[in-house]
């Protein structure tokens, strides 16, 4: 059984249809990439999964439970964390406070402290800057914070929206290394990226979205060598 099943979701913004029946699935342990151009519906898809949007038609199922109409604030405790586009760290709060906010739904203080230590180990920069205001971090550090914050809820599935956007090439590589590491540590990853090449390089499988529909899917390695993909998304 798939961990996450998205089945024929149709999402509207007012009169405008953003998703025209998107279907895909994520299996436990995979890294799945969702690629596509601006406005294809990638972010809309993620927002529908984590409850920020509700589809007019279709269903979202996570670990066998129908979460189509579950509100966003209840999704986290079910095991899905969302790293939003543009990082959305709490700029006025410290790095530490941001991370604690990620564990908002968790109760056990000792376990939260343990997770915090694991996050600090994975992101030593965040530990160095734990008392600094998040708004003063660089873009790459904010991205790490957003990821660390999401991991604080100990998700089984982490969805990431454009984690490499607006980062310097060095940080882009680092962020993708971290994503691979998160996956190795046992968290399933659903990744939305405009940097199709990088995304396909670390993903197991990928889906290509075009104007609200999945137009292509397959093994990431195959898609990397697909002529149409090369032309449209890899700039070759």
């Amino acid at each position, binding site marked *: 059984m798939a961990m996450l099943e998205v089945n024929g979701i149709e999402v509207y913004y007012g009169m405008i249809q953003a998703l025209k029946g998107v279907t895909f699935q994520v299996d436990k342990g995979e890294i799945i990439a969702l690629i596509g151009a601006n406005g294809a519906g990638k972010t809309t898809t993620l927002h529908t999964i984590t409850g920020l949007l509700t589809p007019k038609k279709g269903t979202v199922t996570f670990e066998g439970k129908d979460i189509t109409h579950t*509100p*966003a*604030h209840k999704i986290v405790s079910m095991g899905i964390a969302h790293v939003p586009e543009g990082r*959305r*760290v*709490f700029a006025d*709060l410290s790095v530490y406070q941001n991370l604690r*906010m990620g564990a*908002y739904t968790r109760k056990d203080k000792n376990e939260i402290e343990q997770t915090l230590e694991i996050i600090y180990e994975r992101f030593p920069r965040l530990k160095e800057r734990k008392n600094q205001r998040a708004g003063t971090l660089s873009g790459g550090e904010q991205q790490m914070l957003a990821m660390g914050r999401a991991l604080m*809820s100990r998700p089984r599935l982490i969805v990431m929206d454009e984690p490499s956007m607006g980062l310097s090439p060095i940080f882009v590589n680092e962020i993708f290394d971290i994503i691979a590491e998160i996956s190795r540590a046992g968290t399933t990853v659903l990744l939305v990226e405009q940097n199709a090449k990088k995304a396909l390089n670390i993903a197991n499988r990928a889906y290509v979205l075009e104007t609200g529909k999945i137009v292509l899917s397959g093994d990431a390695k195959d898609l990397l060598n697909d002529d149409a993909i090369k032309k449209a998304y890899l700039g070759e």
Partner: protein
Amino acid sequence: MSFLSYLINGISLGSVYAIIALGYTMVYGIAKMLNFAHGDIIMIGAYIVFTCVSTAGMHPALAVLLAVIGCTVLGVLIERVAYRPLRSAASPLAVLITAIGMSYLLQNLALLIFGANTKNFPEIITLPSLSLADGQLNITGTSLLTIGVCVVIMAALMIFIRKTKAGQAMLAVSEDKGAAQLMGINVNGTIALTFAIGSALAAIAGVLLCSAYPSLTPYTGSMPGIRAFVAAVFGGIGSVPGALIGGILLGVIEILGRAYISSQLADAIVFGVLIVVLLVKPTGILGKNIQEKV
């Protein structure tokens, strides 16, 4: 000596403004809306105490408790019925205009129920006055209590925001509603809680205000509400310490203005000061720079 006593009166009135301003500033910080009906909650709270004590003959403490509960329920109800459905409206003006309408609705309801006659608010604070400097400086018990209550409320609120989960949720929601939801925070619940706290404080402010100025009409809350709004903007809207500083300064300016310049011009002076402050520092004394997202 008279200067000192004016100053203390000003601080006391300012404490009431500060308590009211908290309601404005917290709701603005968290729901990003101006609740212009907030001043009228004060009036409702005062009428509840008036009815309980003068008509039903209850113990004042019980009456105040009932007023706090009544206003809390009213505030949450108003948010749920009138403001929440408009939260995703295309224009933020929709909820602002609704708030103004809600203000008139409350005033007219009070007019309908209690009539237009000025009611004499019962004397429920019976603390003795404090006499200093051989009786030259007299501080009323009401003034002392008002200042004390303001200090306690401020301290309690800051501890609440810092130390509790609900307080942390408020911080998160005030910065970014969407991201807060992704942390598992119930944004609607947090906003409702903010209205509950603000309205409970409004009830307390109503009691303190009417104890100092004991004439109660359906419009009693209106002007203090607007002055407290000015105080909130003055201190930096969205900031809890800003509400305290803005409130106290406004109270002191108002009383000193009345005493030394002109009692007719007191409001003109208050609003004049606001204009000057906003010209020099548009975000208010403790306000943050608002960065528009591109």
